[in-house]
């Protein structure tokens, strides 16, 4: 770890603000994402937004969402992987909020320098997400549209924070471990302690968030 010995005031000044945009349309059936969302709500300097609760009729407030983006340093999409993509409200959110002139284009630099990552749960096993596996592509490959979204909006794209085999994670007691890693990740992001070099290039960010550190 490379934390500096600075005063409390200085430290709080260096705290990054994290925005978790959570999308899950059937939360009564959620076993992974709802607990992760609750964890995020409990951490200081993290703003956790339930998009389906905010906009049940998809009537997204563009102004408000853009301001929220401006007010934060790190943007996280938290969602279950649906057909190798996001639940529909996150796509709607992208289509509406990431406007030309705001997020991209000649004068669209509002997101410049921010960091972006996806926190996903996938039903398939990790082995399935390989070029020679059942799904034929790695998870990073499948998320390339979002990677390119980050690129064109001048954000730094970090590896996805992924839980595979999520349908049986509860039975296999893997969820609490994953939640710990999630909390670690969020805390590191807030404090700016994440190794960016590794975070950008690793396959799964969860592997970087073990309790013992790197």
């Amino acid at each position, binding site marked *: 770890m490379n934390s500096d010995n600075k005063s409390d005031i200085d430290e709080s000044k260096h705290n990054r603000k994290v925005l978790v945009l959570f999308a899950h349309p059937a*939360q009564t059936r959620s076993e992974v994402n709802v607990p992760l969302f609750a964890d995020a709500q409990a951490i200081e300097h993290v703003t956790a937004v339930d998009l389906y609760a905010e906009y049940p009729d998809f009537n997204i407030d563009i102004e408000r969402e853009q301001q929220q983006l401006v007010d934060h340093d790190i943007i996280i999409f938290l969602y279950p992987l649906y057909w190798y993509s996001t639940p529909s409200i996150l796509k709607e959110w992208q289509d509406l909020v990431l406007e030309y002139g705001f997020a991209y284009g000649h004068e669209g630099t509002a997101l410049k320098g921010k960091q972006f990552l996806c926190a996903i749960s996938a039903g398939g096993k990790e082995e399935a997400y390989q070029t020679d596996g059942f799904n034929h592509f790695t998870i990073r490959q499948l998320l390339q549209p979002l990677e390119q979204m980050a690129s064109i909006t001048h954000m730094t794209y970090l590896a996805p924070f992924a839980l595979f085999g999520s349908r049986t994670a509860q039975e296999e007691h893997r969820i609490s471990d994953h939640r710990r890693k999630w909390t670690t990740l969020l805390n590191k992001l807030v404090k700016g302690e994440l190794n960016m070099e590794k975070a950008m290039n690793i396959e799964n960010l969860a592997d970087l968030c073990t309790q013992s550190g790197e």
Partner: protein
Amino acid sequence: MTGYFLYAFIYLVAAVIAVPIAKRLGLGSVLGYLIAGLVIGPVFGLVGDETTTIQHFAEFGVVMMLFLVGLELEPRSLWAMKSKLLGLGGLQLGLTAALITAAAIALGQPFGVSLTIGLIFALSSTAIVLQTFQEKGLQQTEGGKSAFSVLLFQDIAVIPMLALIPLLAIPELASSAAEHGSSSESHNNLSLVEGLPPWGYGLVIISSVAFVTVGGHYLSRPLFKFVASSHLREIFTATALMLIIGIAALMGLVGLSPALGAFLAGVVLANSEFRHELEANIEPFKGLLLGLFFITVGAGINFGVLSDNAVLIAALTITVMLVKAMVLYVIAVVFKLRESNKWLFTLSLAQAGEFGFVLLSFASQNYVLPSNIISVLSLVVAISMFLTPGLFILFDKAIMPRYQGSKTQREQDTIDEQGSVVIAGIGRFGQIINRLLVANDVKTVVLDIRSEQIDLIRRVGTKAYFGDASKPDILHTAGAHDASLLVIAIDDKDTAAEMVKYAKHAYPNVKVLARAFDRGHGYRLRQLGADYVVSETYHSALEMGAEALRSLNIHPFHVERQKMAYKNIEDQQNDMLYKAWIDDASGERIDNNYLKLFIELESLIKNALKADLHDKHSKMRGWTPPPKGYAEKLEHDEIPDNE
């Protein structure tokens, strides 16, 4: 008394028989009335001397017609017409009068007589032309608008003519009449301006015109509001009649044309919220009086004079109509009227008009024309009017087809007048609909029977009119026949049902959206033909229920889904319930199937919503995760071939 009834009955029978026949034969109602008059007058001699008296009375139809024409014209559009009015109208009147005057001089008439004849024949028939335009839907064409400008100018020009004609009096005629003790003197007795110096006369005229405009603008509103608050329809009709008759009387007193005064009042009231109600009230009177007027024209044809001077009258009529048509054609070319419009303009105005009769009798009272000339000229005016429907038929049959190709283009031009929405009822319900439509640039016509409500709505800048939308004639004047939608948003259940029934019957092409009080009322409206029905409380209750669930911390998106599930089941069951309702209502079933189905709906909704709420792995669809362990199965299963 019985005598009057008898005459009235004869007139009505003639009209009732002749007009529908003429209409069916494609001759138009005007010709039907004229023929009716011809049959009861000179042909069978059922009516006689009283026709002139009736004609004076029936001329009031023209006054009403100009009032209605004025109602359609806002002051702004009148101002926009000014160049057309002066250009087309001025040229037509000046050229025609000059040519006919010259012709009369050439035939050996003195100048005064010739000029009077020229002026009389320069006028055309507002009654026939506008009535026919309306019937054939020609008002909005370029030719129709131009013809209207000319007619309006002529109506205005009648005033200076009435002032000019007495100056042309022939001294010998006047003195011989004085010896006999003139009876026509009494006709002019009622006048405010007699004996006034010219400046006083001018002052009286200006102040009475000012009274009509200013009074019409400021006094009519409180008056109509006061009357409307009584909710008595016949009193509103009485008020409308009072207004027009009052104006006509005032104009008569100061020596102005009543028609022009009524037109002015109409223009002043064109912006009023009472416009459509006024139109609906006056329209039947106007129609009947005009019909009566046309009958008297037909009945007044004097066969004796006609047969004695047949050749002369025929020659004169043809000459007059040719000269008029020629002048009109030249003007049409100068003003660049295109194709069919040029011919419409030329043919529609080629007759002499009802003001011709007025000027003739005025001229005789003032000893300008000798009586033998007057009886011949009356026939020329009448016959030229008689021939006008023929000219319209010529236009329809011979000229229109030649330009049929360009006609479709023309219709596209007027599309901005179409596609509007009539909203009946502008209470809490209608306001929301209107706001939504207006915000999307949809032209709406808003009607309500509560004048306070109209007042309020007008204050926020909505075009709303006072009127009982359940009255067929109000719906018509509001443009229901041209509208693409009729929104019925009125409180009264039975009136709403009647309106749906009437609207679907009278305007089968207009889509009707109706607000229902409850389920049963909704089914009734649907049965009567409403295209879309919504219960006034359904959506708001559903929203309130959703808010209640959200307040109990149920996830908003889940609440949204429950709402949709509710709607889906409601929609699915609705048709079945409706059919059961019809069976029950018509008494075909005695087992009260409807009630059974209604109870079934209740439990269906309850079960469907409950399943989703409590059972995590229910059969309810929507983001159901695959079963646990599906991933292994997927990888190891052979996918069966679908062959």
